[in-house]
Each structure stands twice: as structure tokens, then as C-alpha cells.
């Protein structure tokens, strides 16, 4: 039981990379199919739809970042990995915002990106406006990233 702390902490890091990554891969895949449809009809749309396709990919990067910071903090990447179970659970909880919000927001952002790609296909001059809609979803992924980062860094100072 005394080694369970590092297990929970590692589980948090894995969840963060795993779920945010799953969300992003679904999202980028979905938007990619829409982008392929747009480029099939008009190849000059490539650069515009590529940006819209990549928007749901950021959650996966955020998830990886949280996983990386957590692994560094708990000593898996070097140093001592000796942490209490309570601390391990705290790390696990700290990773959850990025894991859950990353998964859901990537999929929802992709749906928004698909609609934006359809919009750009019909009205290429509206690209600027079309990009804002999926970008709004990014706000919540960034908020989750902030909470996870602040929590992971803050846990080191918690006396448990």
C-alpha cells in the first residue's frame, strides 16, 4: 500500500495523455474528413481548412503537457518516486480536468470545425469568422489546462 501513491499519480498522468489524446484523434479525424471533402472540390481551400482541422488537436498536446509535468513532479522522469498515497490521489485529481475536458471539448470542437469547414467551402471569404466559432471551444480546454497545471505544481507544497 505504501507504493500506491506513485500508482495513483501515474494513473492521473496516463489519463491526461490518454483521454485528451483520444478526444483529439477523434476530433482531428472527423475534421480531416470534412477538410478532404472541401479540398476535393476546391484545392485552394487547403490552407484554410487545415487550420480548422488542427484546432481540435490542441487538447492532445495539453494532455501530454500535463502528463509530462506530472511525471517530472512525481520523480518518474528522474529522482525519487517516493510519494504518499494522499499525494498520489491529489496528483490523480489534478490531472482529471485536462483528461475529461480534453476528451469532451476536442470532440465538440471538431463538430464545430466541421461546420466551419462547410461554411468556408461555401464562402471562402468568411474564413476569419468561421475560425472563431471552433476557437471559442478552445477556451474551456485552456481553462482545464490551467487548473491542472496550477494543481500539479501546487501539490508539492501540500503537507501530506
Amino acid at each position, binding site marked *: 500500500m505504501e507504493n500506491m501513491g506513485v500508482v495513483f499519480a501515474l494513473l492521473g498522468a496516463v489519463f491526461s495523455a490518454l483521454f485528451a489524446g483520444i478526444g483529439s484523434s*477523434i476530433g482531428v479525424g472527423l*475534421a480531416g*474528413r*470534412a477538410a478532404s471533402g472541401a479540398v476535393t472540390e476546391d484545392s485552394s481551400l487547403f490552407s484554410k481548412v487545415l487550420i480548422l482541422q488542427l484546432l481540435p488537436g490542441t487538447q492532445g498536446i495539453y494532455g501530454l503537457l500535463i502528463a509530462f509535468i506530472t511525471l517530472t513532479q512525481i520523480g518518474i522522469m528522474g529522482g525519487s518516486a517516493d510519494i504518499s498515497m494522499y499525494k498520489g490521489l491529489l496528483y490523480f485529481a489534478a490531472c482529471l480536468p485536462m483528461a475529461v475536458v480534453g476528451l469532451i471539448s476536442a470532440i465538440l470542437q471538431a463538430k464545430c470545425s*466541421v461546420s466551419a469547414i*462547410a461554411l468556408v467551402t*461555401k464562402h471562402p471569404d468568411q474564413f476569419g469568422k468561421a475560425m472563431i466559432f471552433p476557437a471559442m471551444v478552445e477556451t474551456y480546454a485552456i481553462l482545464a489546462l490551467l487548473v491542472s497545471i496550477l494543481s500539479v505544481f501546487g501539490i508539492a507544497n501540500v503537507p501530506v
Partner: protein
Amino acid sequence: MTSSYVDKSYVYAVVRVRYAELKLLNASVLSQLATAGSMEEALKILRDRGWGNGGSEDPESILQAEREKLWSFIDEIVADRSIFDVFKLPNDYNNLKAALKESVMKFDYPGIYISESTVDPELIAASIKERDYKALPESMQEVAEQAHSLFLKTGDGQICDIMVDRACLDEILKAGKATKDDFLKMYAEIKVASTDIKIAVRAALTGKGRDFLDMALAECETLDKAALIDAAAIGVEAISSYLGSTAYADAVPMLKESPAAFECWCDNLITQRMKPQLYESFGLGPISAYILARENEIKSVRIILSGKQNGFSNEMIAERVRDSYV
């Protein structure tokens, strides 16, 4: 969760449809066509917009080329074309009627088969000729056998047509429900209900009895078949009065005007119901709506061209032109 987001979204197809919608004829182009000075002038407008195969084809070839372009585009964007069988079923059953007539009358009528169908017209013709009904799709076997033997026994082509048309309506409704797509279900329902209304009106005008109506009318959700039969047995006024209490109340003035006006109203109703699909990015709805929009567009162009050919006034032609989807 994954499958609902990824497998059934049709995003690639919907985006391609969005681009294709840019080439649809809008209300102003349709009005320009309707007010063109002659059929040649209307054909020039169509050719300038890419209609036909680039040559100087006759109107019928241009319309046929457009229909072929539509289905080859759908083939390209949707892997399983059978999803849209609901739109092609009437062609299958028209081909069945043609095969029955050809077989019983012992005449060859070139060009009576419609190629955009779910069942190969040659297969239908051959199976009717050889009375090999098992070669037909299961849903067609029974009606083909019954209609064929009745046609041979009585020589009454009309009864045979009615049996086949009824089977077609039942099949459209079944196919619409089977797709589990709200838009296709709605389309199938309106198609069957509007055909029921047309049959009821025609039967009332020609004094057909209840047995005929019972055989010809299909069951659907938005109409009460028994009530429609009761009304049709009384007359057109009774049908109008019954429809006043249904979802088709707005159709009553059109029904009183002419069958063509009612048909136009039905097509416009579907166009109106499919407009929200312009803002949908997922699912079969936008693709189905595009197919219907193209079919309606081809129908409108046919009306315009034949109106021009037969010297109808621009106003008369404009009245018959369907509403544009875009």
C-alpha cells in the same frame, strides 16, 4: 460514443454537398428561365451554367445527363448508395409496370425503362417474361406475381398498375423508416400521403368504389385511411373537408385548383421542410435534401422547357415552377 461521432456523420459527403449547392439553380435563375423568350434561349442559359454534356443535345438528353451526373456524384460521396433507395423505388415499380405491359401486350417499347433504379431493369423484364418471380427482390415478388396473373386473366392494365403503385407506396414508407433518418422518414411520409390524396381525388372524380380505394391507398401516419376512403366515396368536397383537419389543410385550395397545383404544393412542402438541412453539417439529411433539390430542379426545368415548347405563357410556366432549395 466513438461510433456515433465517427461512423455515421457523413462529414466528407456533406461538405462536398455544400460545395455542390453553390451550383443549384436559385429562384432568380429559375425566374430568368421561366421568362426566357424561347426554349432555345432557356437552353442557352442552362448550357452556360454547365447543364448537359457540353454538346448541342436536345432538352430530354440534357435532363437525363443531369440526372446521371447527380447519381454519379452521390455514388462518389456515399459508399452505401442503398441508403437512398427510397428515392429510386418509384423507378423500380415503374419498370415493373413497364415489364408487365411489355410481357402481356407482347410488344417491345424501346426506352420505357428508367435506368436510375435499385433493381436492374433488364432483370425485371427478364423475370416477368419468364415468370421467374423469385429472381426479383423479395419485396417485389408477390406483387409481380399477383399483378401479372391478374393482368393475363382480365387484361385490365389499370388494376395491375394500381396494385404495383400500392406496393410501391408501402415499400417507400418501409424504406423511409428503415433508414432511421428523420428527414428520409418525413420525406417518405409526405410522398405516400400526397399520393394517397391524389389517388383519392382522382377516384372521387371518376366515381370509383370503396374496394378500389382500399386497394389503392396505402396506410400512413399523417392520414387516416378509413376516413379518406369515406370522404372519397362522397366526393372531392368531402376530401377537402377531411384534409382541413389534417396536416395537409393548406393543400385544400390547391386541390380545388388542379391536380398539377396540388403536386406543386406537395413538392414545395418538402422543399420547405428540407430547408433546415442547409444548416446541418452531419448525417444523411443534407445529402438527401440535395438529391431532392436536384430532382426538383430538373422537374422545374422540364416544366419550363416543355412550357416553352408548347407556347404556354410565362406566367403559367412560373406558377408551375417548384420553389428553389437555395
